[in-house]
């Protein structure tokens, strides 16, 4: 089910603006907030995340997957966002939905709120940024233009940058250069899910087996 939730927004008159979240919420005691992967990786992991949520629902655990401001259905401008803002947004969503745990996917570990939980495939901000910069450099080269990661980064920190179809503002780029995964989360090894990470795939995919394995692990770690 898709529901709205009040997300902090300093620019809005009320101080919040509504964002959407995919939820499986039956008012149960165990409530897991999903901190989504960032940028193109979220597209490739969304079906995996939704399938994992379905498995957890069957196992008696509520889950919520909020849109980050500026992404998915959000009407907020992406180039105004920062990791700090997204961290506040996730914390607010956690409070609104009374989450008891967090499951961070990939770059979601950079914005996970201070709840107990797990991270899958956690990645440092610099690595995420480098991959996006490299994709842009390679695409430019194919089009006959020569760009370098250093020059792009310099430009991005002043004026923002288009990376993999996302318009990132200077604050977000600067934040990514320094952000490291939340240290308090339990690391779930991708190898334990029995297959390669779906974020690696060139196209969005799904794996019911991996979703089931991830859900089993969470159920096991959170006795009813």
């Amino acid at each position: 089910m898709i529901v709205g939730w009040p997300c902090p927004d300093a620019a809005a008159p009320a101080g919040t603006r509504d964002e959407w979240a995919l939820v499986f919420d039956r008012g149960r005691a165990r409530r897991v907030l999903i901190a989504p992967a960032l940028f193109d990786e979220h597209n490739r992991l969304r079906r995996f995340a939704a399938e994992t949520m379905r498995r957890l629902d069957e196992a008696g655990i509520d889950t919520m997957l909020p849109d980050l401001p500026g992404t998915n259905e959000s009407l907020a401008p992406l180039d105004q966002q920062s990791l700090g803002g997204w961290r506040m947004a996730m914390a607010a969503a956690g409070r609104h939905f009374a989450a008891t745990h967090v499951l961070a996917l990939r770059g979601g570990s950079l914005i996970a709120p201070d709840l107990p939980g797990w991270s899958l495939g956690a990645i440092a901000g610099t690595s995420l940024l480098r991959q996006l910069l490299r994709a842009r450099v390679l695409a430019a080269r194919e089009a006959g233009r020569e760009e370098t990661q250093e020059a792009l980064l310099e430009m991005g920190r002043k004026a923002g940058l288009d990376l993999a179809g996302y318009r990132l503002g200077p604050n977000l780029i600067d934040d990514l250069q320094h952000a490291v995964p939340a240290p308090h989360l339990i690391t779930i090894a991708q190898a334990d899910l029995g297959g390669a990470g779906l974020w690696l795939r060139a196209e969005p995919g799904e794996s019911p087996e991996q979703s089931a394995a991830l859900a089993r692990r969470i159920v096991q770690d959170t006795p009813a």
Partner: protein
Amino acid sequence: MSTSADQTLRQILADVLGLDPARVARFDRDTGLFGHLPELDSMSVAGLLTEIEDRLGFIIDDDDVDGELLETYGSLLAFIEARLASA
């Protein structure tokens, strides 16, 4: 041909491109990559190179990335073996 680099590279290609491992196992030195595999676009090339860096422990300079590097399975493997040998 160093067996471990060869196996690691095949595993990475299967993981990143979502290819059937049996198909990747049949790749030989002349198997075409960029321009031959529809799965391999600039975003997935970036993912592929990052994954090679992570799993094999060296950094690939963007200047090293050109059409020749990704032309065939053999050219990519030769580059990786040369980097591992000089490490």
